[in-house]
């Protein structure tokens, strides 16, 4: 892939919406790859004990999936220069074949200097917003 040109982007440009299924297996794989083995991300008993409604996705896994929507649109994972999220609600991941889901929408909110663009993300699960102030700055060609 090659990097998207800043001249092809305007304020208001919408990124393609993506829906990601999230299963327990995804969380176990992410735990191993990231080194975050907090049991609330794979153990129902522990999740319930600490007052959660069930096993939830790692916030950083949610952030990674939402980040892919930006980098795959920009055409280069190295294009992301700034990325911020606030974790609002957890993403519940039931222990069944369907699991949970994450819907990610993005929109160019500002054009910055040096061919950079700010993308504001809307990230929901089962209709609830799970991230707030989710913003990425990409360096375009």
């Amino acid at each position, binding site marked *: 892939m090659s990097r998207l040109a800043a001249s092809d982007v305007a304020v208001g440009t919408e990124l393609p919406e993506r829906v990601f299924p999230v299963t327990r297996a995804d969380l176990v794989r992410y735990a191993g*790859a990231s080194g*975050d083995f907090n049991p609330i991300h794979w153990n129902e008993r522990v999740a319930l004990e600490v007052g959660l409604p069930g096993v939830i996705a790692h916030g950083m896994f949610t952030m990674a999936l939402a980040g*892919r929507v930006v980098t795959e649109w920009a055409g280069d994972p190295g294009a992301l220069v*700034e990325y911020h999220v606030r974790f609002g609600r957890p993403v519940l991941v039931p222990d069944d074949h369907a699991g949970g889901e994450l819907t990610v929408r993005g929109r160019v909110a500002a054009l910055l200097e040096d061919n950079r663009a700010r993308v504001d993300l809307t990230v929901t699960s089962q209709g609830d917003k799970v991230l707030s102030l989710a913003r990425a700055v990409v360096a375009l060609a």
Partner: protein
Amino acid sequence: MALDRDLVGRSYPPSAVYEVGRGKIAEFATAIGADDPVHRDPDAARAAGYPDVIAPPTFAIALTLEAANVVLGDPDVSLDYSRVVHGEQRFTHHRPMCAGDRLVATTTIEAVRSIGGNDLLTTRVDVATEDGEPVCAATSMLVARGGA
């Protein structure tokens, strides 16, 4: 228990060198479903202008979370970790992390606040090569929920 505001600005000694491996990058990319060949194929990465395969942007957490643990081990930081949740996360990338990078992480306490009975602790981890070239900064805000 409220955190001492004098902690703000406290910096910890740099981490041991972390060498970024191609295998670890590929494993992380697979875990987040990132199938861009620049994460796995050195030729594709070079064609895109990088010296070797590059890590996905949030890969930095694998390194910075570990580095920030130094704060959790500080006896002056009284935080009930069983009640800690991740509140916010920011990455500033000077360039992508690349296989072969030898990185050092330095952790600083950036902010301490109490809001509505919750303790908020913000740490910043600056990641640079062992030669001092800045690579990224990761800022994490942790929330210790106040007891019921």
